[in-house]
């Protein structure tokens, strides 16, 4: 476990460097806030509404769901990849079945059009009603 001391030290060094830099800067930098300076930047206009009220493309959610599945899969594949050379063909077949199911899932998501940023039917809707359409 002694190797992990280096990892902890690196984390500490990163935090320490950032802390030192911000402390030094806090000592020497001027501090003269004004109302305009503290306003969130919106191309020089007064900000309209809260940024936490903006709408997001629902597609982000779909991508995160698919990502979650694949990430768990990647974690499952790590030990398989390490011992594959020793275990040989049986492990190979097992791994291929596992990956095959995932690729089927990806193909299904693809076929349903969830990998498109703008779906076909949405694109059609945008064409017919351009005035009500909101860009993501």
């Amino acid at each position: 476990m002694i190797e992990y001391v280096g990892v902890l030290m690196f984390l500490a060094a990163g935090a320490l460097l950032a802390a030192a830099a911000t402390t030094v800067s806090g000592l020497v930098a001027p501090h003269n806030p004004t109302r305009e300076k503290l306003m969130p930047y919106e191309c020089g206009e007064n900000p309209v509404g809260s940024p936490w009220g903006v709408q997001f493309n629902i597609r982000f959610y779909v991508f995160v769901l698919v990502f979650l599945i694949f990430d768990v899969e990647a974690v499952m594949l790590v030990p398989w990849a390490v011992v594959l050379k020793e275990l040989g063909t049986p492990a190979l077949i097992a791994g291929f079945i596992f990956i095959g199911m995932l690729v089927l899932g990806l193909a299904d998501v693809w076929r349903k059009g969830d990998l498109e940023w703008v779906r076909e039917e949405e694109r059609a809707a945008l064409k017919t009603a351009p005035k009500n359409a909101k860009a993501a």
Partner: protein
Amino acid sequence: MGLKRPDLETKISNLLSPLVVAGAGGALVLIALVPQLAALIREQLQANLSPTAAAVAASAIGVGATVFLVGQLPVFLIWFERKVAAHIQDRLGPMRVGWHGVLQSFADGIKLVFKEDIIVNGADRFLFKLAPFLVLMGAFSAFAVLPWHTGLVVSDLNIGLLYVVAITSLGSIGLLMAGWASNNKYALYGGMRSAAQMVSYEIPTAIVILSVVVQVGSLNLQDVISAQLGGFGNFANWHIFRLYGLNVIGFVLFFICGLAETNRSPFDIPEAESELVAGFHTEYSGIRFGLFFLAEYGAMFFVAGLTVVLYLGGWSGPFFEGPLVFFIKTLALVFVQMWLRWTLPRLRVDQLMALCWKYVIPFAFLVLLVAALASAGAS
């Protein structure tokens, strides 16, 4: 008439430029000598301390040296990038501060420290301050497992590659946090986009790394390099030349994913200035902005270094081997990253996602399957 008396700035510049150039040269010599130095230090430590204390002290020295290098590298890389950009666009780039502008980055760094640090109204102050810390810690601690030579690695973890995949995602949390805490619409959009991009490209990164792991049978980065030693001219066994040329696809995919993971152009939509001002760091100023910059260039160097370890034989080379070989190979890849930035236009967000899910992931699976077949067949 006669010559004008040089002003103070010219004098300082004339004095410092040779120092900086000599310092860079000295650093290269020092990097080449690191194995001898490390052996010397290790000997001394083991003679004077208990084994545990010696190991801890050795890693402390390693951490100090690496952090110093990684902290100084961006200063050089930013100057280098500006020069590369300028010459690609038929300009000269920074020329005023020092010889061919070598002092420009130092001047900019000093400027950033002296700039006012603004936290906008309504920002989440705690998260706003925490975000650069997380990004910097993520970028630095990845260097813990990067091997520079035999036995010359700070933490020789047996799960090295898994650790790399895990620790680099700390940065994406930091970016999302920065975007969320800024109370700014551009920043929030930038943060969300960068999170979506980084998680999407994490999958092909992991799969391509696994395709190398399957061929090596270990997650340790030193084992990955020792699997590439030997062969014709000491470079024929590099992974890029193996697996019937299919590893070239893996190499290209990994390079693409590396660009996307570090938010480098053509994948820099999280900070696309033409649509999002500056993305997640729109509201950051002064030294906090500088920390993001530092982390970005550190991550760039790390991704290039990891590519070298996985595919280009790490510190091994045809005539020489050692830290300097590794360093030069990595810098060459960093140059390619810069070259691409000033050559390719930025992708749109839908093209970016389509590229990842429809092209990169299927091809990554293909490389993994062939690699698995080859290595299971060989046993």
